[in-house]
């Protein structure tokens, strides 16, 4: 399982590096203008983020001790997955279609909001689980 995940990550990294090298070659040879190359690269990164976000809720890990912790972890993964997927698609869409200034600002805001949502929700779940565990230990 870990080997397969590592394989996908390495394949994605290789794709990004190959795309960057190809686009650089295209810009130098005059086949692609610098703005298009930048846009293509950002769209690829956005789609990559959407792809990772899509599979985020599937990475359950080992079962937790309490059903409540399990439910909250599941909720955190779902919220994080949706947030990252939508942010990735928004990022890719903005870089594909919007003017450069809007794509730059809007894309950053979309990804930062998704990251904040994911982190905030995960911390809330962690705090709730910890509170429940302390309460059950005191009983």
């Amino acid at each position, binding site marked *: 399982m870990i080997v397969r995940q590592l394989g996908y990550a390495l394949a994605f990294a290789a794709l990004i590096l190959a795309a960057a090298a190809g686009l650089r070659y295209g810009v130098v040879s005059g086949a692609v203008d610098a703005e298009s190359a930048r846009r293509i690269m950002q769209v690829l990164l956005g789609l990559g983020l959407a792809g990772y*976000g*899509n*599979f*985020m*809720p*599937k990475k*359950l890990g080992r*079962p937790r001790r309490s*059903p409540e912790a*399990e*439910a909250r972890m*599941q909720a955190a993964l*779902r919220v994080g*997955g*949706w947030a990252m*997927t939508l942010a990735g698609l928004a990022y890719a869409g903005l870089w594909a279609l919007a003017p450069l200034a809007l794509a730059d600002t809007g894309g950053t805001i979309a990804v930062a909001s998704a990251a904040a949502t994911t982190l905030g929700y995960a911390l809330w779940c962690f705090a709730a689980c910890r509170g429940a565990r302390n309460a059950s230990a005191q009983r």
Partner: protein
Amino acid sequence: MSRVFKALADPTRRAVLQHLRRRPMTAGELSALFPVSKPTMSAHFAVLREADLIDAHKQGTTITYRLKLSVLEDALLEFAHAFGIGAGAAAQADDNSTHHREGSAS
């Protein structure tokens, strides 16, 4: 992907996934929610596991199922649920089984 579509085509399996959205549940808890036999529920669980939409872990004699939907699969589930895909076939299957039972009884 065809396994995912097959799994999501059945209203009972979709209802199982909807229940698992709230929290992980045991096979017994899930079976109690549906008016079908345990072997039928086991077959539904097997289809869902084969499609990698649920995760099962056994503790003693209890099997607990956890939701394992990607965002795309989650969206497909909502889509299938909203448009009632497979509901007609399921209703027909129910009718057939009712007629079959009535035929056997008379």
